């Protein structure tokens, strides 16, 4: 199938690791370009989850029997794997959540509720996914704080002058996407976090769209919190990660109460376990955590350097091919972009584009991408979004382009 333009990645070979990719839909080979919504899973992840249930299933952190011991070891090994993946200082800074959304809500409620006061400001950006906006709006409603948003340029880049103006004496938290899910813009999070920290502002980076595509070093970024989702990083659904700086986690109260997060419980009250257990009440998603560990192993076996080179090449090719079509306007043309190609076809609603592409076997997302403020800013109700992963090929971009020609013919 595909070219091996990049030394180190044999795309045709690695596609065989993903069972789902070999199927046909609507009589055509599946062309999966909806990776920003969720990614496909390699056999090793599927097998890790299956093997856990077939041979290791038991609850963790409590049993004295062999299976419980095995499950606990595997679960904690995944935590160490994630800590290496993010270059966290310690596995104790890794909290397993249901996903990015839950991680951000955890910070909002555990860190935010006791910390923010009327007049305090939470700084976000116009390009945030709803999951990095709505939890702060809820927190603002609970505490009397206000949410302010850094504007963007027409190209979809942050207005850094405005950022400097908005980062003020009342700012308590900066919450910013590493990569925009709707536009693909890579934000200069290291610089933004540095400016915030100079002012003592706590920082959270939404890494849902970056962690699957580029190396993340939370210590180099310097952020206090970093959240991402397993299912977008080739792992199972229902598991995500919240990295939290150890010193901050120590001071944060529990978010949910239950088993596994306590030290001592009496009818009168309870004392709580140290992080990360303090934030993992109840039986967690053990199989999914183990599957996530396998996903990070898989990414590690490929290496981010060749992944980034290939995805950069694909995005450049897609930008040229799709952007060159008459009647198509690219949305989000930041200088630094990753894996996302958003566009509109003049005179054709994105849902209709999506229906025609689906008939060609091409899976894309049409809609507001859970980022309504950025759509409103750009004056669009919706866009078509093709989002790439390392297993995509130039031939698949060609299939997308053929589908777009058919869209133009049908709705001419």
């Amino acid at each position: 199938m595909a070219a091996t333009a990049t030394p180190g990645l044999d795309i045709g070979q690695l596609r065989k690791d993903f069972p789902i990719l070999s199927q046909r839909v609507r009589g055509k080979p599946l062309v999966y370009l909806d990776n920003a919504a969720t990614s496909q899973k390699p056999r090793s992840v599927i097998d890790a989850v299956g093997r856990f249930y077939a041979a290791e299933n038991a609850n963790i952190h409590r049993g004295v029997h062999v299976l419980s011991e095995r499950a606990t070891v595997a679960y904690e090994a995944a935590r160490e794997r994630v800590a290496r993946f993010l270059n966290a200082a310690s596995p104790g800074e890794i909290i397993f959540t249901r996903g990015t959304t839950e991680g951000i809500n955890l910070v909002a409620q555990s860190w935010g509720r006791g910390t923010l006061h009327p007049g305090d400001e939470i700084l976000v950006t116009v390009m945030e996914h709803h999951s990095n906006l709505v939890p702060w709006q809820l927190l603002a409603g609970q505490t009397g704080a206000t949410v302010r948003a850094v504007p963007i340029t027409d190209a979809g880049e942050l207005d850094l002058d405005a950022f400097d103006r908005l980062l003020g004496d009342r700012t308590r938290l900066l919450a910013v996407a590493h990569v925009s899910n709707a536009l693909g813009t890579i934000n200069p999070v290291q610089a933004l976090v540095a400016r915030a920290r100079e002012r003592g502002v706590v920082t959270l980076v939404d890494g849902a769209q970056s962690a699957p595509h580029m190396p993340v070093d939370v210590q180099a970024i310097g952020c206090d919190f970093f959240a991402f989702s397993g299912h977008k990083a080739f792992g199972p659904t229902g598991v995500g990660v919240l990295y939290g700086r150890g010193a901050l986690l120590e001071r944060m109260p529990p978010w949910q109460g239950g088993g596994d997060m306590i030290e001592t419980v009496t009818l009168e009250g309870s004392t709580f376990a140290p992080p990360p257990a303090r934030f993992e009440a109840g039986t967690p998603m053990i199989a999914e955590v183990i599957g996530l560990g396998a996903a990070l192993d898989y990414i590690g076996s490929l290496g981010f350097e060749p992944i980034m080179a290939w995805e950069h090449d694909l995005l450049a090719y897609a930008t040229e091919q799709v952007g060159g079509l008459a009647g198509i306007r690219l949305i989000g043309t930041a200088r630094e972009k990753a894996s996302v190609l958003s566009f509109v076809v003049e005179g054709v609603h994105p849902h209709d584009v999506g229906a025609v592409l689906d008939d060609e076997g091409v899976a894309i997302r049409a809609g507001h991408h859970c980022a309504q403020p950025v759509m409103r800013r750009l004056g669009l109700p919706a866009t078509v979004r093709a989002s790439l992963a390392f297993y995509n090929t130039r031939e698949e971009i060609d299939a997308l382009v053929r589908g777009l020609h058919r869209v133009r013919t049908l709705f001419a």
Partner: protein
Amino acid sequence: MSSLSELYQNVILEHNRSPRNFRPMPDADQDAEGHNPLCGDQVVVWVRMNGDVIEDVSFQGSGCAISRASASLMTSAVKGKTREEMASLFDRFHRLVTGALPPGEAETLGKLAVFSGVSEFPIRVKCASLSWHTLKAALEKGGRVDAGTAGPSGPDRPSA
């Protein structure tokens, strides 16, 4: 015919290009706004009544070809109908797009039968029925009603 060409029949494509009754109505008796938060589609429907009869109906808004053509064909179909006739038409139309209408009954829908292909695309049922829900809301309550939050019944209810 492929299911895609069943969905986008020529009548639908033509009404999408040149929607009928696509205009505001300054002397309307009632209007309502319909909104589908899932895809951002938005439609306003205006109605002028003569007793129990829909004397004039018009719409404006933004949405996909299915929702726009559906609104356009709806305005043509319900003009001159009583509330009861409109309700009966909507009922049959709704069953058509959800695949629950016997083929014999589809013929009673006239031009609206071109939406039969929608039943193969469950996610597009909302698109086809948004303007109908909005017209129903306008007739029932008048004033401005958000069909998205007012909670139109049925499996095609717009969801957040």
